[in-house]
C-alpha cells in the first residue's frame, strides 16, 4: 500500500524484517529474537539459503572489485539493508578513499541504523525509499549531491529485484534506473531463480518466501532482460558463485548450489 508522501511506514516490532534476517545469516547481531526465529525456520526449510545469502554477498564484493578496477568511484546501492560487514562503502573506500556511496532501503530500521553508522562518513548518504519508485530514488539521490549522474556510476541491485513482483513492472523500473546513468556506468544484479534447482528446493523456497517478503523467482532470460541494451561483461549472467570466482576452490564441481544468478553490465552507449 502506498503511504502518503512523508509518512513513514509503521514500525512493527512484532514482525521480522528481511534486512535483519539477512544480517543474522551473515553472522551479525543486528537482529531480534523474532528475526532469528524466522531465520532458523527458513534455514530448516531451505538448508542452502544461508549459504546463498553469503554467496550473494561474496558476488557483490567481487563485482565491486571489477567496477573499482574500471575506475568507478560512485555507487548507488539499492536494497542495501543493514550494513553488517563487507559493506559497499567499506569495500569502495578501501580501494579509493574518495569513493561515494548512496544506500537505499525500504526498511525504516535499516535506514535509521545506516544513518547512525555512517553519520561520520561525509561521502555516504542514506535514502529511505522503495525500489518500485525509482524516480523518487533518483531525485532524492540527486538532492543529496553526493553522486554525479553525468559521470559513470555503479548501480547495485543485490538480491532485491526478486522482491518486486511482475505486476510492479520491474523491467520499467530497471529501464528508469539505466536511463539515469551516464555512459560507462555499471549495473550489478543478483536475483533468485528457479533454473537448475531441484523441485524440493523450489517448493521449500516458495514456502519460505511466504513467511517473509514474497520472492519472485525468475529465469536467466528474464534476469538478463533487466540489463536492457547494456553490454553484459564476462562471464555473463551466471550462477553467482561462477561469476569471476577468486580462486577455483571457491566454485563447486557438483553444479550450482545456490539458486541465484548474478551479472554485471556496462553502459557502452555514446552520449547523445
Amino acid at each position, binding site marked *: 500500500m502506498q503511504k502518503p508522501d512523508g509518512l*513513514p511506514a509503521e514500525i512493527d516490532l512484532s514482525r521480522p524484517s528481511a534486512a535483519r534476517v539477512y544480517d543474522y545469516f551473515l553472522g551479525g547481531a543486528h537482529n531480534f529474537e523474532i528475526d532469528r526465529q524466522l531465520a532458523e525456520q527458513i534455514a530448516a526449510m531451505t538448508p542452502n539459503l544461508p549459504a546463498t545469502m553469503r554467496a550473494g554477498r561474496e558476488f557483490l564484493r567481487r563485482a565491486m572489485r571489477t567496477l573499482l578496477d574500471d575506475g568507478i568511484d560512485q555507487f548507488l546501492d539499492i536494497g542495501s539493508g543493514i550494513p553488517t560487514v563487507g559493506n559497499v562503502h567499506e569495500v569502495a573506500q578501501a580501494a579509493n578513499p574518495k569513493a561515494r556511496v548512496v544506500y537505499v532501503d525500504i526498511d525504516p530500521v535499516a535506514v*535509521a541504523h545506516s544513518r547512525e553508522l555512517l553519520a561520520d562518513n561525509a561521502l555516504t548518504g542514506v535514502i529511505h525509499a522503495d525500489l518500485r519508485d525509482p524516480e523518487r530514488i533518483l531525485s532524492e539521490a540527486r538532492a543529496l549531491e553526493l553522486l554525479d549522474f553525468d559521470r559513470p556510476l555503479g548501480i547495485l541491485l543485490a538480491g532485491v529485484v526478486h522482491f518486486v513482483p511482475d505486476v510492479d513492472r520491474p523491467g520499467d523500473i530497471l529501464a528508469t534506473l539505466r536511463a539515469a546513468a551516464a555512459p560507462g556506468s555499471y549495473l550489478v544484479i543478483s536475483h533468485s531463480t528457479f533454473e537448475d534447482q531441484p523441485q524440493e528446493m523450489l517448493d521449500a523456497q516458495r514456502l519460505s518466501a511466504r513467511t517473509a517478503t514474497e520472492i519472485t523467482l525468475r529465469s536467466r532470460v528474464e534476469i538478463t532482460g533487466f540489463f536492457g541494451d547494456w553490454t553484459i561483461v564476462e562471464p555473463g549472467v551466471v550462477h553467482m558463485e561462477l561469476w569471476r570466482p577468486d580462486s577455483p576452490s571457491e566454485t563447486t564441481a557438483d553444479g550450482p548450489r545456490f539458486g541465484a544468478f548474478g551479472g554485471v553490465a556496462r553502459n557502452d552507449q555514446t552520449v547523445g
Partner: protein
Amino acid sequence: MAAVGDSGGKSVDLAGARRYAADWAQAVHRLGFVPLSVAETEELLYAHTLRLAAVLLDTEAPAPAVEAVGRSLVDAHLTEPGVVEWSVRTLSDRFRTEVLADAAGRPGLDARIAAMQGALAAGFARALRERTFRQQEGIARAMWQARDDAEQALRDSEARFRAVFDGAAMGIGIAGVDGTIIDVNQAFADMLGYSVDELRQINVASLFHADDAAGLWELYQELIEGKHDAVRVEKRYYRKDGSAVWTDLAVSLIRHDDGRPRFTVAVVEDITERYELQQRLRFQALHDPLTGLPNRTLFFDTLSSLVELTDPPGSVSASSTWTGSRRSTTASGTPSVTGCS
C-alpha cells in the same frame, strides 16, 4: 625447507606456516560469511600464524598476544563459532608439527600450547561478546529512532490536519461507513446551527431529505460501498431551526489498507448567498422591475424552449410555468462523480 631461526635457535617453518594459513583461510570461508577474498583472508591469517608461532617459541606469558589474535579474528568478522573451534583444535596438533621446524623433543610445549588455546578462546569470546552488545545496542537504537521518526511524522501530520480541520472556513465532517458522524469542525456545526457535540450524535442519513436531487442518496450509498472514490453535488440542508442552507458538498471515501471503505470525509461550502443572488439576478433579468410580471426575455426564452420541445410540430407538451421552470433544473445542479477504483 625454508626455516628461520630466532635468537634461541628455535625456528618457524615458513612454508608450513603458509600452508597452515591457507587451510585456516579455507576453513573460515567454509564456515561462514567472510567479507574478504580467500587470498586476503589468507594474508591476514598468515600474519596471525607467525604471531602464534612466535609466542609459542617465546618464554613470555602468552596471554596478551594470543588474546589479541582471538580478538582480531572477531574484528575481521570471522565470528562463526566454528572458526574458534578450528583455530583452537589445530593449535595442539598440526600447528606444532607443520609450523614449528623442530617441535620434537621441546620441553613444556604441551603446557604452553594449552595456555595459548585458553587465551585464544578467551580473546575471541570477549571480543565477540563486546561486538554482540554493540550491534544489539545499535539495532535497538535504530529501531527506536525509526519509531520516533514515524511517530514524529504522524504527530506532525496530525497537527497539520488539525490546523486545516479547525481553521477551515468550509465545513468538514468525517463519518463512518455506517453513517455515524465521527467528527465535524466548528464551521460545519455553525453552518447547520448545531453544536459539534450535537452533530456527533447524528447519523448522516438524517441529513438527507426527500427533496434532495434525484439519485443523491443512491450516489452516497454507492460511495460507501466503495464504487466511487468521491462525489460532488449541490445539496440543500435543513438547519436545526428549520431554515434551508444551500451547499456545495464534496464527499470523499477513505479506505482501509486492503481497499475496504473506512470513512467518508465531507467538505461543505455554504453557497446559500451565492445561490439566492443567482436566483434574484435571474428573476430580475426575466421580470419587469415595476410590475414583477414576466418580461419579453422570459417570454422569448420560454417560447424558444417550447419550440425546441415541439418536435415534431403539433405535440406541445411543455408543462413548465412561467416562473418555476428554470429553478428546478438548475438548483440541484448535476451530481458529479469522480474516480472509481
